[in-house]
């Protein structure tokens, strides 16, 4: 299992537009099951990262740390790319 921790950079948190952009990006990796959870939570609490409803119910605010996890071929690159999205202020424009 590969994991990667990231800090939410969007000012509105991981909601609305940022959540939609992130969920779409996570959905691009059809061969990987990517999960997301709040830092400090049990790995089993991880939710489908490509679900915009799961992301919204996570309720991650600006500055919160979240953990991305995935297993399999290309997991590392995928998590690196997705962490980059979380660490960008997607609500800036």
């Amino acid at each position: 299992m590969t994991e990667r921790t990231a800090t939410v950079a969007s000012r509105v948190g991981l909601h609305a537009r940022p959540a939609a952009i992130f969920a779409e990006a996570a959905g691009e990796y059809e061969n990987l099951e990517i999960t997301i959870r709040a830092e400090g939570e049990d790995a089993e609490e991880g939710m489908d990262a490509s679900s915009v409803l799961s992301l919204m119910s996570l309720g991650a605010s600006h500055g919160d740390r979240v953990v991305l996890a995935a297993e399999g071929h290309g997991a590392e690159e995928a998590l690196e790319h997705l962490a980059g999205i979380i660490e960008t202020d997607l609500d800036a424009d």
Partner: protein
Amino acid sequence: MDEQSRQPQREILDGVGVSPGRVIAPLVHMAPAVSEPPEGEPLTEDPEAATDRLRAAALAVRAELTERAARARSESAAEVLKATALMAGDKALVKNAVKLVTSQQLSPERALWQAATAYADQMRAMGGYMAERAADIEDVRARLVAELRGEDAPGVPQRREPFVLAAEDLAPADTAVLDPDVVLALVTVSGGPQSHTAILARNLGLPAVVAVQGVLDLDAGTPVFVDGAAGTVVTAPGETEAEAVAAWRRTAERLASFDGHGALSDGTPVPLLANVGTGDDARAAAEAGAQGVGLLRTEFCFLGRDAEPTVEEQTAAYAEVFAAFGDRKVVVRTLDAGADKPLPFLTDAEEPNPALGVRGYRTDWTTPGVLARQLEAIAAAREGSGAEVWVMAPMIATVSEAVHFQELAHEAGLPVCGVMVETPAAALTAEQILDRVDFVSLGTNDLTQYTMAADRMLGSLAELNSPWQPAVLRMVECVTRGAAASGTTSGTHKSVGVCGEAAADPALAVVLVGLGVDTLSMSPRSLAAVATVLASVDATEARRLAVLALEATSASEARDAVRAQLPVLAELGL
């Protein structure tokens, strides 16, 4: 379809015509709210078939919303539709619903309902911004369940074939997504001549009839004839109706263009201006020949916002409108929030009687500063343009309010300043108000509801809420007399305009001019019809018809008496 195989009886339903035009098309009902599948509703099919249906429904709703997002006319509407599409196809939502089907043997409809409700409740519990998203999830829930049941999603049904839309009433949210290529006419059970339905219909040029009892009892798919001028809906239309539609098409062509010179037959000029809300509106109005803007509704800058837009944002928005009209007149109405146009940072949603509450100019008392900054933005936009910019305040009731507004406008560097006459108080003191300010503009929609003490949103009061009411016409006359008296004292002409929906009714336009009104402002669609009818009378005739209306005993009597003297109306099917 069995509902079409039945031979319908010819039936005539009467209502109030609010936007002219004649069409024949099948009736389609506004889809009702989706009912909750009963708790514990059991699975009655193969679980695998049920989960397949669930997945297919999610894909279908997502595809439909994505397609509508691509066709949306505004970027913000597209954004909303895209976000909703994403929720409809959400993997976790479908997964949770499938789990409920397989583990608890629930019907897919119930399973979906429950899975979506869990998310909505969770969002609502989070409060704030997230709580507002709960409604979006419930909207998706309704769409998915409707899809599973093979029903129409709530709201305006999506069709490829043209139809007549029948509804109890239409809300702004419903009408924002209407496609005038498919929706040919609007018929509602409630609503008056100034309801959202009526205003929207006139803007889109769609025939519309409101206050039609029994229209929802007609079967869906029934072909109906709608006459938006006569205010009738006829089932089982025959040759007579088909001919009426053909005749309307011919006159519609004749009424499609306005040469940009409003005048009576004797040459008396009656400038015809446009009511606009955005830069797009303004460009379309200029294209349609409008001689200026008689009412720029500035709410478009503010509505749907949690906070006040900056002076720079406002300046850019107003400048766009001014640019469309070159050196012509643009009358800017300052922010008219409150009542049916609430704004979170200005108005109190808890008022028991918002139409009589803190609205329009009055919001300056409770939230000072917003108006001054708006005037600053209008002045800045005027600086950079060649337009002749006038400003006016809505919802004025006293002379001192008018004076205070003028001081603010002058401080901002705006030289021409006036007020709206929407309250009987302002109409009765028009002379004293005009001794101070430069012009007035009659907002006939509100002036009617306040004069008649009749809520303009209530269909049951449609007759009272008519600007044809002799009492309302006497209010108008009181204003034009006040303007004449003030003009004599000051030696300068004080302009009286009308920017309410009354100005768009060609017969009433004649009466208003006969009462002494100088300019008329309306939705650009109505310019050609009003110009054509005005050109058929001279000043003496207009005055005679005005007196006829003043002396009537009811709105319908006034209307009938005047219309009977204007044969051009019947000729044009207006």
